[in-house]
């Protein structure tokens, strides 16, 4: 009995840990997409976050600085995306792909000197009292501080987006930039801001991988998580709460896969690794109806560059 429950406990813990980088990535992209900018460059952003965080952690030994560095790097790369999509108004899909390539390349080049090296790692921080609760305590409250930050980020973002004035402005810019523009809201600045903010939070997801999940840098260590993040944003219909659900769901699939592998199942690890991607495809298929989009207040202007002078 005890052995069984501890396997469930550790699997759930692993689910949370595996889901956290996804959660950060999706939350960041929610900000970006809600302002009307599609960002396919999540993979590149995560990698840049991972390497810059790791590099700073290695040189300074200060994890806090490392996190800041990762977020700044993410914001900068996000600014590049914003420049091309918002100012130059080029195709957002192409720009996103280019960001991914740049991010992958830059992280590969920069990371060359850090392969095989170990740096600091975020330690588990047991929350006093809460972590003693049987079962739930160890599953939810025995993680590192970044996980706790991700917990807080969800309700904060939810409140921000739906209940505050800047959140209202964000939604207006995404759904009807003309309406926002007519009210003196600077659509360009809003989009720049949230693309950069989103980039920073996504990069944090990558930094989690090299600073907490592991304490190393491996080339391409995100292994496709950025792409899953893109799908998750759609799956979560740009809602932070649903994003949390989705991130842990996918984290769970990954964790389960690893567990099953460790338990010596005959299913090849490669087949198991396919599952998040297959699941994503299935989810996309079932949520692609127009009705769902309308109901949910999808950023209708997603992917469309804004121009005041466009004659209809």
């Amino acid at each position, binding site marked *: 009995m005890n052995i069984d429950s501890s396997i469930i406990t550790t699997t759930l813990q692993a689910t949370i840990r595996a889901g956290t980088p996804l959660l950060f990535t999706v939350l960041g992209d929610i900000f970006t997409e809600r302002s009307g900018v599609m960002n*396919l460059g999540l993979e*590149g952003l995560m990698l840049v976050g991972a390497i810059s965080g790791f590099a700073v952690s290695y040189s300074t030994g200060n994890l806090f600085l490392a996190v800041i560095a990762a977020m700044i790097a993410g914001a900068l790369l996000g600014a*590049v995306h914003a420049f*091309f999509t918002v100012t*130059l*108004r*080029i*195709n957002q*899909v*192409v*720009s996103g*792909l*280019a*960001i*991914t*390539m*740049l*991010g*992958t*390349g*830059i*992280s*590969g*080049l920069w*990371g*060359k*000197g850090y392969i095989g090296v170990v740096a600091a790692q975020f330690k588990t921080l047991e929350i006093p009292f809460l972590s003693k609760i049987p079962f739930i305590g160890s599953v939810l409250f025995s993680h590192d501080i970044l996980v706790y930050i991700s917990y807080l980020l969800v309700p904060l973002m939810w409140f921000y987006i739906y209940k505050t004035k800047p959140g209202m402005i964000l939604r207006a810019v995404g759904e009807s930039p003309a309406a926002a523009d007519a009210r003196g809201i600077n659509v360009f600045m809003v989009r720049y801001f949230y693309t950069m903010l989103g980039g920073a939070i996504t990069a944090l997801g990558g930094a989690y991988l090299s600073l907490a999940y592991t304490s190393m840098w491996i*080339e391409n260590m995100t292994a*496709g998580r950025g*792409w*899953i993040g*893109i*799908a998750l944003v*759609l799956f979560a219909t740009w809602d932070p709460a649903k994003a949390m659900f989705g991130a842990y769901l996918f984290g769970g699939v990954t964790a389960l896969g690893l567990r099953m592998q460790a338990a010596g199942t005959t299913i*090849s690890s*490669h*087949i198991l*690794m*396919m599952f998040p*991607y*297959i699941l*994503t*495809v299935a989810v*996309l*298929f079932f949520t*692609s*109806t*127009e009705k769902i989009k309308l109901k949910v207040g999808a950023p209708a202007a997603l992917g469309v560059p804004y121009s005041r002078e466009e004659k209809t």
Partner: protein
Amino acid sequence: MNILVPVVSIIFSLLVMGIILLIFFQRSGMSWGQAFSETLSAYGEMFSWPFGNVYGIYQTLLKMVPLAFVGLGLSFAYRMKIWNIGGEGQLYMGAFAATWGALFLFNGIENKFLMITLILLMGAAFGALWAAIPAFMKAFAKTDEIVVTLMLNYVAIFWVDYLVYGPWKDPKGYNFPLTAEYPESAKLPTMFNGEVHVGIIMVIVLAVILQYVYSRTSWGFNSAIAGDNQKAAKYAGINIGFYTIVALLVSGAIGGMGGAVQMMGIQHRLQHGFSPGYGYTAIIIAWLAKLNPLAILLVSFLFGGLLVGNEQLQMFYRLPLALIYIFQGLVLFSLMGGEAIFNYRIRFVKERAVEE
């Protein structure tokens, strides 16, 4: 005039990458002067071998084949603004199907012509099959093809990994993730003293065929209409659902053929990671070439050379292979940025001209 932006993009990206290399070399311990000359010599190596040396050119041609195949395949869909990002996956599935045929299904067939034809068909069929998934999703549920094709890339790569690490692993392969070697009948004939296989001829022929299809057939005519304005296409009686599915299927089929050709031409066995992202590079190639089949051949040759050069840099200057991604990202950005600026100027200039 159309050529200006792509050419400038490439030159600009080379310059920026040069600067990045400069910084990299300097930070790895050299002085600025040393770093500068190191960068110059690296560039020299990167271009002189793949384009200047006969054997380098052969290597370039070899790399050109899969790039051009996937590039041609992708552009077939891109003409209709169907964003097939699944070139890599279609390549892998084609390679898988080719291996299945060569080592198992058609094992024993001696006739080279027959074998090669069968394997090509297998590659095309499975590439098309792989693209059929997003095709039907798009036609029936309007699912966006971008993320679906992307996800399927990973599924395909893992599928091949499963096979080469598992049931298809060559028992005589020292436990490396690869299959047994293809029989002789499944290997493409070669030219230039065995240095280059006939896949290069195949892809050139394919490009010519596609050029003809685009300019002389009703498919070319109607798909251009569908790509420009889908509503107008429906209004003109063009069956969008049908065209969408066919575009994706053919796109995947060509990519799959590329995988098969790569297997039969040079790899001669299925192995882990045989494609260093050809499917993604092909996207950029298609864009740079503005979806024109003959231009795709040219640009594939160029990028093939750059990939070969990249390998040289890795060997002699210990630069990571990821370097080429920086270049590709830069090219995309400068291409897009250049187009944006160029179009803006065109509008401006046209206004002036009409006023006078």
